């Protein structure tokens, strides 16, 4: 198949793996930032093919994982109201809030719909003028332009029954926060290629310089990931710390100017809470005051809602590579993929969920309790 098979070629993968194995002389730990990369690593078994000296730390780049409990609870509250059509990307429906998820809201009679684009939600608003249509705008810089465009179009077309519950997060401040942690174990970053295809790479040299850390912009197919790892290992072995673009077919240093201009028009940076990690300064986007009328938090008056994460959950430390999943007391007992307490167990590609699955392979009789009482 054109442009998929080519980037999954086993012979080329073997050459890259051999190159990595021939280069590495000591243990290194590197973080793939993006959940899509984590998914690809697990999906293709890449982590098991690497030399033992290389540890991949699954980063906080899964939007499902890091959307804070407070925002999930706001989504559930809005989606439960009569007269609301709540539209979301598919995988947010299963993320547990304090006491339920969007599937449960739908089961209770709420009108919750999976859409593939925020512009689909805008279309629903135009077709059902007597309903309030809300789109759940989550994700990193990758999903943000389409969501900004939906807001822009809603304003331009004066669609007044459409609003957005926004919880966007940005990658560079997260890298900054991880590197500032006194116990940080991350020695190199594979930056998220799709994020950089929008934003460019100009935000990263300062991070690489300040923290003396290699940052390699990396794609998502197996060969892309192996090439990113190969370049990161080379830099580490040579004591270098540069920004490299290993995904040039999609990423230009200046980014996507059209996308950036709509982002600047619709969003402004804000402090944002990350599930499991806490608040990171300037790490999120919110709608600008010009778009306040399209902000679902204000329209539905849920701004005062606050929640608390389960204290036993240490997913924030897992996300930053400070501990491994099984070092958390709740792992595999109170916290399983069926009963997730935290970010990294929520998503199938979260570090804890992946670790849980593979530990079952080593210990096949680890059963979950699924009693009805």
């Amino acid at each position, binding site marked *: 198949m054109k442009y998929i098979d080519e980037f999954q070629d086993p012979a080329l993968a073997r050459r890259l793996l051999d190159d990595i194995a021939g280069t590495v002389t000591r243990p290194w730990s590197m973080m793939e930032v993006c959940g899509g990369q984590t998914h690809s690593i697990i999906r*293709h078994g890449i982590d098991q093919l690497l030399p033992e000296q290389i540890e991949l730390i699954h980063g906080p780049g899964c939007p499902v994982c890091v959307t804070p409990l407070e925002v999930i609870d706001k989504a559930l509250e809005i989606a439960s109201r009569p007269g609301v059509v709540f539209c979301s990307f598919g995988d947010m429906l299963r993320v547990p809030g304090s006491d339920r998820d969007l599937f449960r809201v739908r089961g209770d009679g709420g009108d919750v719909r999976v859409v593939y684009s925020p512009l689909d939600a805008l279309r629903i608003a135009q077709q059902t003028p007597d309903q309030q249509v809300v789109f759940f705008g989550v994700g990193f810089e990758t999903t943000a332009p389409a969501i900004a465009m939906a807001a822009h179009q809603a304003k331009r077309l004066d669609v007044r029954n459409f609003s957005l519950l926004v919880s966007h997060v940005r990658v560079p401040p997260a890298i900054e926060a991880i590197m500032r942690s006194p116990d940080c174990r991350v020695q190199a970053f594979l930056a998220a290629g799709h994020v950089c295809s929008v934003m460019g790479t100009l935000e990263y040299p300062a991070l690489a310089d300040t923290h003396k850390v290699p940052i390699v912009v990396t794609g998502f197919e197996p060969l892309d990931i192996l090439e990113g790892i190969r370049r990161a290992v080379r830099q580490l072995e040579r004591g270098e710390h540069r920004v490299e673009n290993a995904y040039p077919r999609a990423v230009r240093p200046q980014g996507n100017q059209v996308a950036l201009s709509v982002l600047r028009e619709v969003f402004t940076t804000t402090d944002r809470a990350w599930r499991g990690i806490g608040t990171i300064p300037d790490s999120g986007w919110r709608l600008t005051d010009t778009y306040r009328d399209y902000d679902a938090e204000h329209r539905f008056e849920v701004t005062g809602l606050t929640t608390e994460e389960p204290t036993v959950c240490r997913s924030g430390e897992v996300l930053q590579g400070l501990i491994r999943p099984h070092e958390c007391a709740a792992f595999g007992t109170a916290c399983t993929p069926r009963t997730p307490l935290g970010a990294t167990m929520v998503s199938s590609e979260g570090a804890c969920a992946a670790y849980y699955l593979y530990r079952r392979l080593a210990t096949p009789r680890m059963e979950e309790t699924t009693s009805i009482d």
Partner: protein
Amino acid sequence: MPLRDHPVVVMGHGGGGALSAELTRHLFLPAYGGETLAGLTDSATVTLGGARLAFSTDSYVVRPLFFPGGNIGDLAVNGTVNDLAMSGAVPAHLSCAFILEEGTELSTVGRVAQALGAAARAADVTVVTGDTKVVDSGHGDGVYVNTAGIGLIPEGVDIRPQRARPGDMVIVSGPIGQHGIAILSVREGLTFGTEVVSDTAPLAGLVQAMLAVTPEIHVLRDPTRGGLAAALNEIAAASDTGVVLEEGAVPVPDAVASACALLGLDPMYVANEGRLVAFVPRTHADAVLDAMRAHPMGREAGVIGACVAEHPGMVVARTGLGGTRIVDLPLGEQLPRIC
């Protein structure tokens, strides 16, 4: 989430994954389950007056009613016929119950009925009893259909998931994922370059062709809801064996692979309506495979893996790069990923 966390029915309870299994095990089985139902096979094997019968029922609630490659009428026949065939039975008779929504065009009901009749003739079964109910407007999707079926199980045939044995070859009858992607494309208005057509088809003839080679087929399953992943996980759990797949050997059409890549879905979890997976002892695998490939429903059949003693209850796939991944039982329905 465990059942206790779901005081109401959620869509995942009908997704063919872990939530469906939980609902059955913890709610239905304690209420009315017996030894036969507890086997949780797609069709029950019962003995009546000396005859061994396969007996199965299934309800069809597909939206839209008509889709590329088929419609709810085809599914209502083929789905039940295939459930019977997966126990090695020769399907004979069906019941057919229609639940119609007030306001549905009679011409639509007529088209479904015509298609259902044609599918029954093609599958060589007769519809011998039926029922019709009408629900208020807004309480249904136009047309729901339930069919139940019976068929005779030939002497010497014992096909059930508990019979999988280490050393069995795992064979799939053709490319996977077409039905699920065909439905998704029309339901969501998505196009993937090439039109993906449902694989809905009756498989009883293919099964009989396989049994003509040897009665020693251990397991047959049609991987419908939850796809190949759910079917293999259920077999591994029922037989307390493991399954190792060669991912590169699993046939996935280009258009299905593209659609899945675009939406962040895994073809292993996408529904099929005209495919079967078979566990066959290694000594019979080549002969069974030849028989399958000689049949119109099995032309693209191939070995995709093996049953092993290691990691009982788990399905592991060897990836194209030589790594491994666990193909877990899906929780509910697969959801498109954000990025």
